[in-house]
């Protein structure tokens, strides 16, 4: 028996077994109302909730989603904290330092902390400037709670002790806090009752976190994001990490980005820009010199024949953001 025969024989046996599988009921088609589009999209993104819809018609308590009588999907969790924020209040006081503390929260950047043990996988990424230090970290969401699995902070010495203390408070909050997103604010509440209020940055400019929604009419089957930082830095993810710079003049924007993930061990293969799919390759090609326009909720970039539309993360967006938290390994 050769390898073809083995593969076909095993496939036939598997088909026989698959015939015994009871196909679960699909959901009724949800009606998306304009007023609830943000919430409904976010919930379809909730895989656990969507599982409930697909498998059980949405009537089981296995996730965060519920199916309303009119089949509109909604979420008790509400909007996610994705986006670009700046600190405006810490424990009822305005920030101490002259520098603005910024926080970018990017969805699903595929940071793998300890993949070999199957733990420590995290879905999202945060990064920012805290006055004199910069920080970045991987985190998950468990309901409304942020749980950081890894956080790296630069070690610049702050001459301003008040600012340094403020940094430490915020870093502590980012490691574990419950969050609330209102119209323009992200509110973090620490276990000790410390409250940090962030306001949305750049809702009228390109500054912010954007999620690919369409590339030459093709639906994305994997997540691609671009983040435009207030200091003209560009970062992103499309199968591997992207970084670069951008220029903007009101709504017009030009980007100059390139791949930055080291093609080396111990980076796992999926982060080493190997085996990128066509969409990811196109996004990487696009950011190398694309230009376009940004509105409040929509960013259009074009480079040659490539035309991509991005939606602002945190306000809307259609990629299925997965919410299930994977416990950090330590």
């Amino acid at each position, binding site marked *: 028996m050769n390898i073809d025969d083995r593969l076909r024989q095993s496939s036939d046996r598997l088909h026989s077994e698959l015939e015994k599988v009871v196909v679960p009921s*699909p959901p009724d088609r949800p009606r998306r109302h304009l007023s609830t589009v943000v919430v409904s999209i976010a919930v*379809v993104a909730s895989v656990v909730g*969507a599982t409930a819809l697909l498998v059980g018609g949405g009537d089981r308590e296995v996730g965060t989603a519920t199916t309303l009588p009119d089949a509109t999907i909604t979420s008790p969790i509400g909007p996610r904290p994705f986006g670009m924020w700046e600190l405006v209040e810490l424990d009822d006081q305005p920030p101490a330092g002259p520098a603005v503390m910024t926080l970018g929260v990017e969805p699903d950047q595929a940071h793998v902390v300890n*993949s070999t043990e199957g733990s420590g996988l995290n879905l999202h990424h945060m990064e920012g400037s805290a006055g004199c230090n910069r920080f970045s970290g991987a985190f998950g969401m468990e309901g409304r709670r942020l749980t950081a699995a890894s956080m790296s902070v630069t070690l610049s010495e702050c001459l301003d002790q008040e600012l340094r203390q403020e940094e430490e408070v915020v870093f502590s909050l980012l490691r574990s806090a419950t969050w609330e997103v209102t119209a323009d604010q992200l509110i973090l509440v620490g276990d000790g009752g410390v409250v940090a209020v962030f306001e949305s940055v750049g809702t009228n400019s390109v500054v912010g976190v954007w999620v690919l929604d369409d590339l030459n009419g*093709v639906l994305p089957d994997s997540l691609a994001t671009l983040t435009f930082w207030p200091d003209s830095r560009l970062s992103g993810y499309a199968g591997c990490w992207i970084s670069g710079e951008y220029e903007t003049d009101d709504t017009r924007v030009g980007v100059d980005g390139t791949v930055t993930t080291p093609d080396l061990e111990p980076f796992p293969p999926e982060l080493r820009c190997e085996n990128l*799919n066509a969409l990811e390759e196109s996004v990487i090609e696009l950011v190398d010199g694309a230009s376009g326009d940004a509105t409040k909720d929509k960013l259009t970039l074009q480079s040659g024949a490539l035309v991509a539309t991005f939606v602002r993360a945190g306000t809307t967006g259609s990629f*299925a953001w997965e919410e299930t938290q994977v416990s950090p390994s330590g």
Partner: protein
Amino acid sequence: MTETTTLAEYQLVSDHPVLRPKESFEGFFRREYRAVLGLAVVLTGDIAAAEDITQDAFTVTFRDWDRVSTLESPEGWVRRIAANRSVSRFRRGVSEVKAILKLARQPMGLHELGNEVSLDLWREVRRLPRRQSQAIALTYLLDQPRQQVAQILGCSEETVKTHLERGRRALAQRLGVNWREGP
């Protein structure tokens, strides 16, 4: 729609909507579920994770059914999502954790499949580079012609041929069986 060299490989979307009766999502789901589940099962080796990936793939498809249903091959689209998610260690890890959470709540009832996928052959398929394992699963399990595999994987038919050949050679060597020219 504008086409580019890169997107020319991305052939799941046709330039013009296909003129055929639009299928209901329910009909599509019922017809395609087992194939997608099978694909995910052989590529993950974990039934619970495979079920989760299958549901994810259909959720994404469901969300954009108005557009997906006009594609030349909606089947290719959902299989593509499942195939990509199944071989991503990151995605698979997430799905496995979610599957564990689900297992605690409900019996899976797919133990026969569990015995099947534990066979050495599919375990060895999963050890192949991910494009090779995808090409083999799509070709043998789902009986897809090379052209369709190329569409699903977003690469050329020649690339699929190369992946298949290398994968089959590696499998034959590891399993100690003969290798000969395949599909």
